[in-house]
């Protein structure tokens, strides 16, 4: 089951590199978060830890429900077209993402010794998700895409946290959720401001400050 979920997460992450429209990206994020929540739920079930149940619930309510919903609202509000704007076309992106996957695997192999294959895979998946998130941020033009890329990367962090036996300390994890929420709201606010001032959210055109 865990293997399946991890595989799903990987698949979804690779797919994000091919996605060219904003709602599709958001959908991918939603699925990925869903997998993550399920993974956490599984861990909670296995370790019978109430804390992990709470975290799984939070993951689900925040990342699967609340944040995508907020984004949908924002998209409607700023009347942007749905195109993501790719610096690199989908094929090249895929190539890059595969390279990232290899690097992630290399990294995981450095950190975790062979017998613990599950941890190794989890860590490499986590790293892969983080790197892909940042890669999306660097290669997609729309401001919203960047925020989603950031959220993807944060998903990677949550995934990474699961390799720690028993997960992260609970209060830290709660605080993290809070932080994610706040930063998303602030980023959303700035997207709103950018749209108001520049009348678009094409961040590649935000290049007045040079040198």
């Amino acid at each position, binding site marked *: 089951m865990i293997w399946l979920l991890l595989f799903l997460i990987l698949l979804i992450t690779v797919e994000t590199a091919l996605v060219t429209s904003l709602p599709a990206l958001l959908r991918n994020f939603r699925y990925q978060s869903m997998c993550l929540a399920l993974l956490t739920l599984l861990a909670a079930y296995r370790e019978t830890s109430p804390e992990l149940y709470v975290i799984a619930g939070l993951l689900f309510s925040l990342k699967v429900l609340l944040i995508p919903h907020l984004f949908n609202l924002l998209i409607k509000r700023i009347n942007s077209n749905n195109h993501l704007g790719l*610096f690199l076309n989908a094929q090249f992106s895929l190539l890059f993402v595969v390279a*990232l996957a290899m*690097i992630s695997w*290399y*990294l995981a192999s*450095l950190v975790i010794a062979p017998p613990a294959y599950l941890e190794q895979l989890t860590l490499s998946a986590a790293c892969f998700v983080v*790197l892909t998130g*940042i*890669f999306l*941020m*660097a*290669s997609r*033009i729309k401001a919203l895409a*960047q925020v989603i890329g950031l959220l993807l990367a944060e998903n990677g962090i949550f995934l990474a946290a699961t390799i720690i036996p028993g997960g992260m300390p609970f209060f830290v994890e709660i605080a993290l959720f809070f932080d994610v929420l706040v930063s998303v709201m602030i980023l959303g606010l700035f997207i709103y401001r950018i749209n108001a001032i520049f009348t678009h959210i094409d*961040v*590649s055109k*935000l*290049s*007045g*400050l*040079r*040198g």
Partner: protein
Amino acid sequence: MVLLDPLAFFFWAVILLVSLPALIYSIGYFKNKFTRAKLLTTQLITLAFIASMLFLVIAANAFVFLIVWELMTLFSYLLVLTDSENKAAVNAASIYIVMTHIGTAFLIAAFFLIFKYSGSFDFTAMSAACQTMPPLLRNWLFIFFLIGFGTKAGIVPLHIWLPYAHPQAPSHISALMSGVMIKTALYGLIRFVFLVLGIGSLWWGITVLILAIISCLVGVIYALMEHDLKKLLAYHSVENIGIILLGLGLAMVFTSLNLASLSALAMIAGLYHLINHAAFKGLLFLGAGSVQKGTGTLEIEKLGGLIKKMPWTAAFFLVGAMGISALPPLNGFVSEWLTLQAFFSGAMNVPGLLALGFALGVAALALTSGLAAACFVKAFGITFLALPRSSSAGQAKEAPAAMLSGMFLLAAAVVGLGLLAPIIFNLLAGVAVSICQAQLQTTGLFSLVLQPNGVIAISPLFIAIFLGAGLAAAYLVFYGYKVRLGQTWDCGYYRTDSRNEYTATAFSKKFRISFGFFLFPFRKTEKIKDSFYHVKSFIYRTNTTNIFEKYAYNAVLHLLYRIAEIFKRAQAGSIHLYLSYILATLLLLIILVKIL
């Protein structure tokens, strides 16, 4: 904490020799020029500047030396900026501080390299450590010291700040900077290369000699091309630093060949020229300041005839000009003669090829002194003689008494250092002996004849007496009656005026053409026409190309700017680019983590 050895005392003498007259002079120079507050600040900074120099030469600790060195730079920077609203001054000051800053970096490197071995900044400890160092490191240290101090001293090709900075400061500050401050760099060179580091291979001295020869010639040739009185003097500083370095370089060569007494002789020659240059360059800068105050300009093409309006300034300037042109019986003659003697005596004792090199040194020094004389004929002749070339020169006023007395003191020094050469020589012998660890035969403190190597003797005092006798004889025999004023010969033209006079540009034209391979002169002629047929007047401009600025400094700056432009493209405002930097850095480090 402080080090009071003969070398330090010698430099105190040099500093005070110029500082005191300069301070007296400044009273007159600043009169009715600035507001009270500005005057006070300027004078305070001047005092601090002098104090920093005085302290620099007695510091017994390299770290203290470094701090005082930086403070000295700072104060002189502020003094160059006295006229801070003038863009040229700001530019000059910037060039100055940037150059010295980079020079100081080399000094810092050298000091701290030694410190690594000595564990102490004390000169004696550093000196001890230097003896046990690997020779390769000592070579590097020598190069660092040479670049570090050479920048401040204005050795070609590190001289470019000098002709900018010196003219911008008030004249007595120029006198201090040119007469004294650049000498503190030579102090550093003597202190650290001779005493702390100890002379190493033969090529050290030869390098210094080659640089000295280049400095002499480049300095004087550029000076000849310059028609701004203070810039001209500034280039002469480059030249004279070269002459001093000839002495020091010879001393280095002799030391590394174990010719201690010859090395002392060369050192005396260098030190003698050092104090001489302080005296006459100080005097000339003060004179230039008087000219500027009296006429409002330093452009010698606009001057002329000042000898009638400013007789005292003219007389003092003439003394300085004679001193710097090495005319007997004044001081420049003595030191150049000594330098030549050091070359001559050395040539008998060194390997043949080196002796041939010495011959080139002799030729270069002779050429330099010839060109310097030409330059000062131009500077004095065009500025002070014949008819004024502009109305401001025609209405010139003699400088106030304070300024004149400052100049008088230095003029007296120029004469005294010449006439009393044997005494000065013996005093300097004490300093040189302490540096070169040599035995030197001297002819007694109050001898009248200078006999540096026991064979060839000279006495400026006797020359003066003979010259005086000849003069008197000629006067008695040939003069005494019947003198009539008449017009200058003008080929029958109705009247000569200042437009008929020879100009500085014309005076230097021969040199411009014959050194054209180095100066790259170019000219522009414009016709100003009334109508198609009638040319009303010509505008003729000529200038030379400063190859050091054009091909070295500007090239480096250009390169830096080019690279900077490329870097700028890396920060062109694209957030995606920025994010990819982070990603790239991260990935690179991950890939490389095994080998890091």
